[in-house]
């Protein structure tokens, strides 16, 4: 059978009959009725979920607060620090941290992150109007 090959056999009399008879013609004015029906469809508003969820914002905020807090709380000299925080003090020595934060790369990266965050907020608040079906 031609169906086994996945395509129709052009010699098949059924194909000839179907092709000759063609489509069943849609009633006159159907196109207009569909367009009119589409025009009366009630619209619904779909709120796109934000790319960064609220818990993630909280987590990011907490991390930033912790980082800033650490820069103020940790002394410049590490001699009086507990051993468990010595590594942090070493990394967060204020002159190094200040230089790191004020470098143009960090500022640009920060600005980039800020723009992406703003974009995310805008996308999150943006609504899209779809037809209700």
């Amino acid at each position: 059978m031609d169906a086994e090959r996945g395509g129709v056999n052009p010699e098949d009399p059924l194909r000839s009959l179907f092709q000759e008879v063609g489509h069943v013609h849609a009633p006159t004015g159907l196109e207009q009725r569909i367009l009119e029906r589409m025009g009366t469809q009630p619209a619904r508003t779909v709120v796109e979920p934000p790319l960064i969820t609220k818990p993630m914002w909280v987590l990011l905020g907490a991390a930033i607060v912790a980082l800033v807090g650490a820069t103020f709380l940790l002394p410049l000299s590490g001699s009086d620090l507990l051993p468990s925080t010595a590594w942090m003090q070493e990394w967060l020595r204020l002159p190094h941290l200040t230089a790191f934060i004020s470098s143009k790369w960090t500022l640009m990266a920060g600005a980039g992150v800020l723009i992406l965050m703003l974009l995310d907020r805008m996308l999150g608040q943006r609504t899209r109007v779809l037809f209700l079906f």
Partner: protein
Amino acid sequence: MAARTVEDPQAIALALNGDQRGQGALISRYQHMVYTVAHRVMRNTMDAEEVTQDVFVKALGKLGEFQGGGKFSTWLYSIAYRTAISALRSRKQESSSLEQLQENGMEPAATMAQPVDERRAALDHALSQLPEEDAAILTMYYLEEMSVDEIVTVTSLGASNVKVKLHRGRKKMHDVLKDHLKEELWTLSAEE
């Protein structure tokens, strides 16, 4: 009208922006195709038109989901087939059979009531002897010239299931058409 001459991608782009010219072009181009599958499944003009309207409203509403890599006609056909089958199931729940609906005053299919010619009437009659799903599948295969793979995509049936339905439907149609078409017409058709 200019919108009638635009290609599918242009019409789709216009329709995505809510432009009625794009929507109109797509409806105009595919309304007979959609109406045909709706009619093959529903077997009456009233339900076929309702299903056709539903199909276009649905399809144009979720046009953004159409993957440009595939054929728009196949995507639309898939929506048409599923909408028609779903509508048929709803109708069957409301009534025990389509025959009962027609007895209750439903309008019979236009092509059955007013056959354009003998062969159209014979084809309609033969298709009416098949289950609705099989009639739609044969229409996809012989009229739209879809491959088995495309029919599988449209119907979500297995390839072997589609082949069985094609084989069974084809055999049944041959039997019915032999009885209803004059031998010379059927022979002529076979030779074409």
